[in-house]
């Protein structure tokens, strides 16, 4: 055997070992999800007696789903989550990209430098510092809680600084000033220049910002739980929490509710996996 063949063989063996290690780790990672999926098709008694069996003694059942859906008010809750997530995401993109545009292109204006530094500095403030005054101002003084629009606007306000920062980088490095000048000479106003020339060129950043924020909004619990306290306004995380509080002993229903809470985003992930992984990576590395 030559040196090269030996090295190639060693490499192959190393790859097989790594593959096995990865597989074991992968199974550990998805084990909790597998367990939920297995148990969702069992009756309460079967789950209690043996949570590890693939099929319960009483056989396969689909009974948990309709009941959990009804008790969790699934379609309403799902609709709320969908509405809030999509509106917040779209608004965040529009509002923060425009802010970034004016700040990048007019860096010498005092208001722009001030806003930019304020927004960057604010990114280190955790939500816990803002939640009490937020509830006190908007709940106590103004009384605008329990409206979905309030939550949407708050979501946008909280993410505008981070999103602005990402658009700021993209506009500064990727959009040549000459392009805008050409548009101005051709008779575009600043507004038209922005929407017809600049914004379409920001697509990759739009995708990144959309993915990161949409995931954060969809899964957010603390802010929505403070803003939305009426049952018909609940989002999926709040509804899951409320459901668990009421039916925690009815373990079959809990399994169904948990699976229902996870399913929408998992289905989306199957189709958009590449974009989500790329978006999260570029968002994390830039931010």
């Amino acid at each position, binding site marked *: 055997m030559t040196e090269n063949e030996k090295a190639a063989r060693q490499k192959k063996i*190393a*790859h097989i070992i790594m593959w096995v*290690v*990865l597989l074991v*780790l*992968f199974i550990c*990672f*998805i*084990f*909790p999800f597998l*367990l939920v999926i297995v148990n969702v098709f069992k009756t309460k008694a079967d*789950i209690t007696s043996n*949570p*590890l069996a693939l099929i319960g003694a009483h056989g396969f059942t689909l009974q948990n789903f309709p009941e959990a859906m009804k008790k969790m008010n699934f379609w309403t809750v799902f609709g709320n989550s969908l509405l809030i997530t999509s509106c917040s995401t779209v608004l965040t993109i529009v*509002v923060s990209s*425009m*802010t970034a545009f*004016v*700040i990048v292109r*007019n860096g010498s204006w005092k*208001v722009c430098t001030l*806003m930019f530094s*304020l927004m960057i500095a*604010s990114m*280190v403030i*955790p*939500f*816990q*510092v*803002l*939640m*009490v*005054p*937020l509830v*006190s101002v908007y709940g106590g003084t103004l009384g605008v809680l329990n409206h979905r629009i309030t939550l949407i606007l*708050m979501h*946008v*306000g*909280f993410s*505008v*600084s981070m999103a602005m920062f990402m658009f700021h980088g993209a506009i500064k490095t990727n959009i040549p000033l000459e392009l805008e000048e050409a548009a101005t000479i051709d008779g575009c106003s*600043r507004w038209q220049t922005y929407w017809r020339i600049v914004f379409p060129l920001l697509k990759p950043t739009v995708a990144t910002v959309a993915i990161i924020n949409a*995931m954060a909004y*969809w*899964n*957010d*619990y603390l802010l929505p739980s403070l803003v939305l306290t009426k049952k018909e306004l609940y989002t999926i*995380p709040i509804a*899951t929490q409320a459901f*668990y509080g009421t039916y925690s002993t009815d373990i079959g229903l*809990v*399994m169904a509710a*948990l699976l229902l*809470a996870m399913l929408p*985003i*998992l289905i989306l992930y199957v189709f958009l996996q590449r974009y989500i992984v790329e978006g*999260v*990576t570029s968002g*994390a*590395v830039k931010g």
Partner: protein
Amino acid sequence: MKQNKLSYKIQQYLMFAGPGTILFLCVVIVPFVYGLYLTLTSWDGISATKPFVGFANFAAAFRDADYWHAMGRTVIYSVFAVVLINIVAFALAYLVTQGVKGQNFFRAGFFVPNLIGGIVLGYVWKFVFNRAFVAIFNSSSLLATTNGAMFCLILVSVWQYAGYMMLIYVAGFMSVSRDVQEAAMIDGCTSGQAMMNVTIPLMRSSFVQCIFLSITRCFVVYDVNLSLTNGEPFNSSVMAAMHVYNQAFTYKNYGLGQAEALILFLVCAIVGVTQVMVGKRGEVEA
């Protein structure tokens, strides 16, 4: 020229940045400043008057033994979680960048826990700890013991964030060019030495970033804390963020709760900024 007129500037600024500025000020800056004022009052959350008490809340916060226990617990939890998250994430990133078959599938798989919110993850793991592990190991639930609950919280956090940090480390591995590693190997390094002395120093910015992200997340952990342990048993797993929430919204000590939140923020900011400054100092370029 019209470009230099104040009215033009105002009009331009408001047209583009107006909505963003207003929302940002209303949601972040106003509450932040108002929160500073609240720390000086003993407001109960209901009454119209907010009695001014000066720095009494800060004095009370420093005397609040439960708060400092929660803070100590948060520090212990964060140290373990941050170290383990980064070790696991780095190992995963290494394994999925070696050209093994199906590595993109594995990458996608390890990221799955990040897609799902902390509340749901907490309940899923609660089931695993309370039912499945009890059945497998034939013992009582880990969540019922003081140290066990902490251990569970750390385990779930590592599982939750490792996939996300892995993506950042993967990007770091990709940015270190193969040439440098091969040059090191030709110069006589073993692959382990090349990793320790060439690849890892060049990935320093990935480490700084991952550690910063995991510290800032672990310090204010709330969702998983709420759903997995809810502070039990005997309030032994109440983290700082949960204590702040309870202090304000459950016990209605808004001023005290806000003061404690502010201290939490300062501790978190000091740790985070120190870590980034120390980390950046030794950064090297290829």
